């Protein structure tokens, strides 16, 4: 008998439940003013309708375990995705569901005087809302992971600029940790630019690389070797003291790779090799 009540309640008191819920959401402040009032109202109304369907379709005596319909999942995924994008935390997102409890329980309490029926109803609806809340938390997690993955890929593309320093001299300032997939991206863009510009010298500056382990050093060496196969020489610059020590400590053989402490030193060597020299302006005029 009590089961009819919730389905019935959701339908008969739809508008008053919605009002009370919206007031509850505004009061608890989880909206953070990031979602427009009209959107929140639309989302809340849609949720109540979907919940009503879920309860109606479920087992009439125990709707707490009724399956979450595809429409409900899609709806929850969409609002979670939006909220994850806006920077909501998982608990803030889940509060959207949990904040419905107070107005719902309030409605259940006033609907009947039978205390046992009230408790049954509250227990069942609470279980159902908890499951929906957990679903939202998981969905939020997935949405965040998707965002992080996309950002990683964007960073990967952004983080490897190959710049031309001089005719025939390229520079590649690397910032951040070098892992396998990143090294491949870096290697490809550097080698392609070498062909495009016909540059015979490339300076790989690792000032912005926090640590160098054996793997990183090997990746660097591979880049140098590939460039050499194509007919270009690489100079590695920006080797900080502790990195120099690490390289020696790890026993990494840098072979005959030219290394310099600073990008400026490397640039000087590169100019020399391409047949240029740096001179102060005053000394040139003095000669004249």
């Amino acid at each position, binding site marked *: 008998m009590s089961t009819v009540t919730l389905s019935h309640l959701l339908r008969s008191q739809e508008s008053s439940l919605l009002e009370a819920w919206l007031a509850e959401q505004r009061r608890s402040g989880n909206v953070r003013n990031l979602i427009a009032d009209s959107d929140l109202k639309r989302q809340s109304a849609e949720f109540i309708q979907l919940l009503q369907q879920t309860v109606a379709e479920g087992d009439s005596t125990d709707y707490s375990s009724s399956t979450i319909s595809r429409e409900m999942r899609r709806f929850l995924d969409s609002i979670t995705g939006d909220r994850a994008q806006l920077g909501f935390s998982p608990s803030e997102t889940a509060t959207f569901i949990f904040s419905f409890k107070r107005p719902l329980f309030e409605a259940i309490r006033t609907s009947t005087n039978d205390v046992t029926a009230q408790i049954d109803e509250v227990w069942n609806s609470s279980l159902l809302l908890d499951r929906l809340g957990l679903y939202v938390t998981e969905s939020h997690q997935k949405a965040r992971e998707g965002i992080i993955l996309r950002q990683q890929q964007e960073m990967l593309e952004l983080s490897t600029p190959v710049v031309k320093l001089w005719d025939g001299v390229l520079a590649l300032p690397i910032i951040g940790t070098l892992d396998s997939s990143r090294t491949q991206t870096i290697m*490809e863009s550097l080698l*392609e630019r070498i062909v495009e510009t016909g540059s015979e010298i490339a300076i790989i500056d690792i000032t912005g690389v926090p640590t160098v382990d054996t793997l990183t050093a090997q990746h660097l060496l591979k880049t140098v070797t590939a460039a050499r*196969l194509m007919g270009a020489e690489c100079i590695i610059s920006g080797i900080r003291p502790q990195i120099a020590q690490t390289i020696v400590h790890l026993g990494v053989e840098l072979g005959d790779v030219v290394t310099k402490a600073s990008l400026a030193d490397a640039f000087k060597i590169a100019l020399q090799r391409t047949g240029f020299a740096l001179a102060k302006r005053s000394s040139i005029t003095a000669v004249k």
Partner: protein
Amino acid sequence: MEHIPILRMGEFLLITVQVDMHDRLAMKLQDDLTERIVRFGSRGVLIDISGLEIVDSFIGRMLGNIASVSRILDAETVVVGMQPAVAITLVELGLELPGIRTALSVERGMQILRREAELAGLEVLKDANMEEDGNPPE
């Protein structure tokens, strides 16, 4: 039988590999080239592989052999124009072609050979007239 043409440019020989070489063709190139170096007394060999989409260990070994044989015959070998994707693959494969000189383009490769020849105190014809010596040796 098909063969890869070897161009004679003054003191040097130029080979442009454009087709995906099968093994027999690669072996034949090696033989032809050795014969040409001796016949013309060439001082250098340029191998342009910019048209090659892959270099596997077989072709890598062939390049290495050419360089070694040429060196014995007193000719320097420069491999030019290797594609970036090919270079990355070779390094990953573990083939680093030690002992082979490389250059970005035929022009740069030629400069390297000229410089080497000048260092060796030889007269080098500036305007080497290009001629194809198409006939395969008997």
